[in-house]
């Protein structure tokens, strides 16, 4: 039938050399010839009636052999894989084919191999979390700023005041570039309005006053056409307000929200800051853990997986270009002065990183036994819908565990659970958690006993 040689190549691929005996080929050629006789019109014969010799003579021996080779490959490839004890990741590719004697050289990408290493002892100290007095003070300061008290004054405007402009008009070389009404401007030289110098020019104006002045736009102005040009402003002040920071007292607390005292406000702020920092710290913590896990793991995968990941990234990039910039991909490439091959090359490191991470996390998930049931998926979808404020949850009755939404959600739940486990591991609590699960399995709770009885 066939002789097989297996060679493991460098890039996690196998090279199968499959030599097929002449006898088998001859048989296959006769079959192929019959098939070809049915397919092709051979003058002098009805379809399918031409004998082997005639087919070989009209089509050529090589063609018949080729045809036979194809069917033989289909027939023997799975057997060869089994015999070579290889788990392919994807279809192999025929690298070399000689017809006489019939030898196939097939390059087969192998299933990725993931060795997590000594992940069980992966530990990382979480950063300590606290809200410092400075953070609280700056948050309070921010609140005060946002709750400035505005008092109408009749005096000319000073720095630090806020003015309302009933007319703001700017012309560059006779062309009107700004024309606006009811513009509110805080006179602050640090955080200046439009361009440097504008604020200074407005200082000293009183309510009802109109002023014309001209400024030179800087060379690094956003609009290239206007760089270095003079701009003529016509400004009409309607009202001048003095800004006063509210006092840091119970009154502020009650304006900001329903807080009785300043202390209540401080407590609330402290809690919110802590929440925010906890969220961020958890993210950072998990990212660091994932990095540790990846660093300690050994992954071997065939190059085709990397190509596939690049394909995915490229598709995402294309979609985002078309959606965000409303631009055809080809135009975008031209604009960037790149070819698709270059873009692929640039994406390669990112693709490799993403794939390694995905493979390693996937392996970790199966190692620690992350499973998600359909019920959990359904629950997650219900939560999402409720969060989105959907009242009518009837559509959940016809929940399809195979739908795209369900699969998407399942994916997310799996990731979430995996990361949860990873966090437990990092904190050194995974074993405890597993023990609890174990004991639950061993000793079913009262509810379960009852359920089983029913």
């Amino acid at each position: 039938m066939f002789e097989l040689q297996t060679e493991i190549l460098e890039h996690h691929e196998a090279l199968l050399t499959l030599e097929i005996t002449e006898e088998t080929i001859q048989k296959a050629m006769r079959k192929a010839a019959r098939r070809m006789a049915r397919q092709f019109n051979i003058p002098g014969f009805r379809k399918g009636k031409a004998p082997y010799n005639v087919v070989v003579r009209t089509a050529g021996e090589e063609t018949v052999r080729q045809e036979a080779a194809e069917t033989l490959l289909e027939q023997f490839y799975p057997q060869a894989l089994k015999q070579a004890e290889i788990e392919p990741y994807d279809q192999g590719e025929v690298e070399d084919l000689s017809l006489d004697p019939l030898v196939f050289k097939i390059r087969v990408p192998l299933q990725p191999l993931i060795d997590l290493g000594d992940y069980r002892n992966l530990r990382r100290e979480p950063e300590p979390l606290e809200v410092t007095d400075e953070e609280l003070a700056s948050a309070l300061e921010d609140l005060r700023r946002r709750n400035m008290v505005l008092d109408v004054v009749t005096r000319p405007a000073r720095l630090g005041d806020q003015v309302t402009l009933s007319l703001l008009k700017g012309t560059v070389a006779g062309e009107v570039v700004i024309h606006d009404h009811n513009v509110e401007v805080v006179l602050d030289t640090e955080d200046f309005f439009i361009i440097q110098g504008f604020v200074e020019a407005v200082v000293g104006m009183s309510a009802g006053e109109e002023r014309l002045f001209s400024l030179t736009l800087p060379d690094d102005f956003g609009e290239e056409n206007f760089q270095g040009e003079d701009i003529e402003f016509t400004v009409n002040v309607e009202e001048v307000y003095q800004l006063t920071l509210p006092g840091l007292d119970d009154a502020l607390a009650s304006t900001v929200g329903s807080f009785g005292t300043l202390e209540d406000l401080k407590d609330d702020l402290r809690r919110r800051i802590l929440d925010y920092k906890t969220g961020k710290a958890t993210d950072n913590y998990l990212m660091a853990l994932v990095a540790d896990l990846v660093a300690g793991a050994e992954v071997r995968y065939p190059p085709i997986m990397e190509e596939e990941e690049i394909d995915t990234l490229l598709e995402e990039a294309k979609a985002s270009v078309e959606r965000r910039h409303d631009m055809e991909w080809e135009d975008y490439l031209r604009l960037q002065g790149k070819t698709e091959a270059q873009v692929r090359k640039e994406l390669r490191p990112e693709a490799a990183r993403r794939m390694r991470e995905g493979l390693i996390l996937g392996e970790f998930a199966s190692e620690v036994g992350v499973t998600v049931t359909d019920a959990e998926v359904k629950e997650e979808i219900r939560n999402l819908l409720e969060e989105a404020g959907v009242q009518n949850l009837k559509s959940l009755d016809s929940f399809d565990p195979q739908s795209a939404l369900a699969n998407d959600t399942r994916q997310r739940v799996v990731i979430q659970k995996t990361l949860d486990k990873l966090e437990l591991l990092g904190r050194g609590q995974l074993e405890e958690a597993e023990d609890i699960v174990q004991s639950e399995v061993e000793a079913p709770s009262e509810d379960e006993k009852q359920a089983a009885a029913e």
Partner: protein
Amino acid sequence: MDIYTVIVRPLVTEKTEEQKEEGKYSFKVHSRANKNEIKRAVEGIYDVDVTAVNVMNVPAKINRKRGRRPIVRHPAWKKAIVTLVPGQRIEALEA
């Protein structure tokens, strides 16, 4: 007549393939060729011994169909069925 003028081409059809088993080979031959000429031509070209030659004139046929050439005329030709001494074969025509 030259022997290569007498034999135009061998015929390869379902029927002739079957007749080869009985040592009978069919050819399209020159319309003016006679049995003796055909016998000599086959013996000369294929180096075999001929025991009998049957000839027939295949009449012209007209195919009618739609298209660029609605009427196609296939001219008349002469067919010869040559029987060899039992056991002999023409290797060159065995495909």
